[in-house]
């Protein structure tokens, strides 16, 4: 099962390596990891996507919580949540494919962020499924380079 964990931790040197060291040392798997400062500059938020049986996820959550620099761990995939990932794709765009690439990007509400005579660099944002779809469609045209941010996620606010 895929789980998306949101981890608040102190924005201190070494804090991130405590988290990644925990995963490598205990043989847990990290599918993606994204980290940046929160509104409070002393605190970072780390979004981590991992897979494992419930017992493993329980261990991961507890072990993360045990780290002294960690403030809070939430398995946000337990409830309703929104997730987004951004990807930059440099795709081949030669005279006969330039128009088609633009149409595809438009369908996915992407943006062209860099242009060269033979390629476009495009920016697409969305949940993992959308990123996968756009990659699958562009792949036959020719993807030269791809950079992904990894997933960030936020729990939905209660509706009542």
């Amino acid at each position, binding site marked *: 099962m895929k789980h998306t964990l949101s981890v608040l*931790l*102190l924005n201190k*040197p*070494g804090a991130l*390596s*405590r988290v990644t*060291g925990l995963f490598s*040392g205990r043989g847990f798997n990290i599918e993606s990891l994204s980290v940046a400062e929160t509104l409070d500059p002393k605190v970072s938020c780390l979004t981590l996507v991992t897979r494992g049986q419930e*017992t493993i996820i*329980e*261990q991961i959550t*507890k*072990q993360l*919580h*045990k780290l*002294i*620099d*960690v*403030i809070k761990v939430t398995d946000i995939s337990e409830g309703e949540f929104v997730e987004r990932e951004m990807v930059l794709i440099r795709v081949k765009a030669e005279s006969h494919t330039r128009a088609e690439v633009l149409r595809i990007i438009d369908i996915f509400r992407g943006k062209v962020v860099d242009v060269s005579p033979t390629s476009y660099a495009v920016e697409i944002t969305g949940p993992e499924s959308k990123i996968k779809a756009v990659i699958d469609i562009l792949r036959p045209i020719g993807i030269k380079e791809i950079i992904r941010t990894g997933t960030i996620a936020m729990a939905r606010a209660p509706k009542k």
Partner: protein
Amino acid sequence: MTKMTGAQAIIKCLKEENVSIMFGFPGGAVIDLYDALLDTDIKHVLVRHEQGAVHAADGYARATGEVGVALLTSGPGATNGVTAIATAYADSIPVVILTGQVPRALIGNDAFQEVDIVGITRPCTKHNYLVNDPKDLVPTIREAFYIASTGRPGPVLVDLPKDVVASTITYPEKKKIKMQTYQPNYAPHPGQVEKACKAILKAKRPVLYVGGGVILSNANKELTELAEKIHAPVTMTLMGLGGFPGTNPLSLGMLGMHGSYAANMAVAKSDLLVAVGARFDDRVTGRLDAFAPHADIIHIDIDPTSISKNVKVDIPIVADCKAALESMNAWFDKSADFDSKASAEKHQPWVDEVAEWQKKHPLTYHQKGDIIKPQYVVEMINELTGGDAIITTEVGQNQMWAAQFYKFNKPRHLLTSGGLGTMGYGLPAAIGAKMAFPDATVIDIAGDGSIQMNIQELATAKQWGAPVKIAILNNNYLGMVRQWQELFYNRRYSATPMEITPDFVELAKAYGAVGLRARTRDEVVPVIKEALATDNLVIMDFVIDREEGVFPMVPAGKATTEMLLV
């Protein structure tokens, strides 16, 4: 506001933390701190190798329950300490390790004696720090003591750049430590306590399975009260020995790979296992699916990660062992459904069944001729010290024979590297314990292999007046590995014969200690008596049956009921 150097501030801070003794080894990066040490009454014990310093601090901590302190220099000084830090971490021992570091401007430059010790020790400390700002110096050390000694204890390392220690700072006033991210929970959840007690009321074949947590939280009295109140047999892990009196009729001794037949059978047949401060280590459980297969499991532990890590727990209680046991005892005292006498009667058939196993397969050995059996040596040490000595061990057969044949009646009397299994632990740990309790008899039960791993600390013991007694069970083998080779590798003794071993009697003399040797069974008691009678440091060299094994033994990966017996 008083101004002082960082070094003076560290010393003042250590005094505030009630540190009276520390173990260490100087070097360029900590020379300022060593200079400031001359102006205090904190005793500094100069060891002969940094591993010894941290083991001694660890032994001091285990024997006293206080935080042990070690001071090491940068680079190799710090890395030499790593094995001992990992040892303390594996057994949850409160130790603060202060390491020197190169000046801040040189960090990352591959400077002389520079190493990223914070990076290296991240997975084997409870927490660690590099002090980057002189104003953080004192608060960090305070936090280190707080973290090391609270919750599930553990080692905390503070790395101190030389220029930070040499800087001038204003000493900050002591404040109560409150950390946003670290608030260990001590009190048990009353609902869980009630569930656990009700499960005990229903049980017919309960067993208490006790680990080092009981010793760390000083809960031995509460545990004994509970065991006697409900009249249930008690088995202990290696780390739990002494948490319940070994001579109490309800004690089954140790369980697991080299546990007693009765202990392993009792767990296998039990219908309720009450785990107190134990962590279901693989050396205890054997094959997991065959461990306590008929039992519901109650697990008291202060560390939530220990719960349901290896074995699924039915009733978890995340709490300090002492607090949880107090609550359970109080619950039984108040409960109208509980009557101690009725409980004793109800459990008597079970206690009798367990006693039958004890009678059928007691811990024993076969004496042949006048050769010295190691078990006999431990039995005689037990007898001649009245079971009152502080015993440290090395790791291997010596450790298991000590655990099986010394009857620990009190907590903090067995100091042994359980989790990491560090050979070379026993001698420096014995020194730490002896420095804490100069009047106690402290005996390191050792093997001829492991004693050589930190033998240099004989000089430390001699210099600082720590006349510990070392009992070497000398079989000229790395005996535990040899035993595995005998049983599971067709007697192919690869690298286990110690072809050259020093003459330990002469070695003792070289260090100004007393060396004694016993070659026959008759010589064992006189040697122990002489060792106990002298005020000096002693090595007793017991030339034992070379191929004696530790039994019972559960082969790795087997069910704990599949024991190889004597």
